[in-house]
């Protein structure tokens, strides 16, 4: 069973069997953003630091940054959400993942939140 972690910036991180981390935004985040019309993703090969802005989502009304939840190197971006940004609204926590990365420190995921802790965090907002 793969484990999914969450950040307080409303990203989810899933660690695959290959050790790569898949990053997306949470359903709470897509709902808060509203109708998403444009997504800009980081280029594979880019090194990103934790909390660094590395993707952009635009709704009709406003632009928002998406932050790297952990440090590492981007290995792949999801072309499906570039072609069809509205997918982020309908499938934020499944097929509408943003990018994959090789983590600098695989153990760093343990500093992120569990689903229960993230839900508790949402409840406190």
């Amino acid at each position, binding site marked *: 069973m793969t484990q999914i972690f969450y950040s307080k910036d409303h990203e989810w991180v899933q660690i695959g069997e290959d050790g790569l981390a898949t990053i997306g935004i949470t359903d709470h985040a897509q709902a808060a953003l509203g*109708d998403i019309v444009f997504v800009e993703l980081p280029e594979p090969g880019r090194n990103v630091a934790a909390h660094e802005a590395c993707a952009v989502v635009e*709704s*009709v*009304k406003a632009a928002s940054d998406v932050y790297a939840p952990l440090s590492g190197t981007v290995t792949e971006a999801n072309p499906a959400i570039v072609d069809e*940004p509205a997918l982020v609204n309908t499938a934020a926590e499944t097929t509408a993942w943003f990018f994959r990365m090789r983590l600098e420190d695989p153990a760093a995921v343990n500093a992120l939140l569990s689903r229960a802790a993230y839900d508790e965090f949402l409840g406190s907002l």
Partner: protein
Amino acid sequence: MHRRLGARMVEFAGYEMPLQYTGIIAEHQACREGAALFDVSHMGQAHVADARALEALVPGDIAGLPPGRQRYTLLLNAAGGIIDDLMVAHVGGHLQLVLNAGRKQVDLAHIRAHGVAITPHFERALLAVQGPKAGAVLPEGALLKFMDAALLDVAGIGCVVTRSGYTGEDGFEIGCAAADAERLAELLLARGATPAGLGARDSLRLEAGLCLYGNDIDEERNPVEANLTWAIAKRRRVGWDFLGAAPVRAALGAGTAEKLVGIKVSGRAPARAGAEIRDARGECVGRVTSGCFAPSLNAPIALGYVRAGCAADGTALDLIVRDKPIPGIVAPLPFVPHRYAR
């Protein structure tokens, strides 16, 4: 009531306003295809009795406004800068003004400072029903044509109704007492209108090429550079006897350094207010004042001021979004054709 309908609220001009209910795109489409209901009670309604006196402060033909008609006009300062843009309706034996929410106190002070008596009714509610099915939602307004105004009874509620709006679609703006507003809104929803928020209102007005005060026009901009010369009435161009007339007349004669233009943006990334505009040689020639993703065009659009030499339709320009140039082209306004009930 807004929250019961699922609204996400935002602060705007000191008011808690609904940004969206189900989603900006769905609400936008509801207005283009059916009928949308907007609560725009934050706008300021006020009465003026003396049309001649008001004419001293605006370039429109107000003295010649017949009973039952409405007109768009501008409050100008001595330098010809735009203090506010407003609607004036001749209805109920006086002029009814509709002022922008963020400007109503400024307007009131300015109008009074020039000796014109004005009575604010800022407590009154204003609802807008907009879209091709607006006529079916408000059959009481069937006899009104675009820019007509009348006192109408809607299910026992006394309303000031104008056939106008801020979306480019046919529709009505309906003023009523605050105490009656919720019942009126419920009635209009029951008749098939879809609740819509400020988000859709902004994308609709931008597609319709209509200026937003504070973004596209302000006290630093005159009507000539803002492409609002049509609001300077023929008769007023004879007398030139309104505040700011001399600088506006000079701008009309000599042209202005910058012009407000519409820009169609390639790709899908919207260029927002503040984005730099560059010409083909990479030189900065202006800035975006409003920009969004246009749901009806499935593409980003913008309004912005550019050097007069770059203002012709078809001029290729770059808009700078996150340090990258995005190609755009100067396009005629409106982006989406108006469909008023003329």
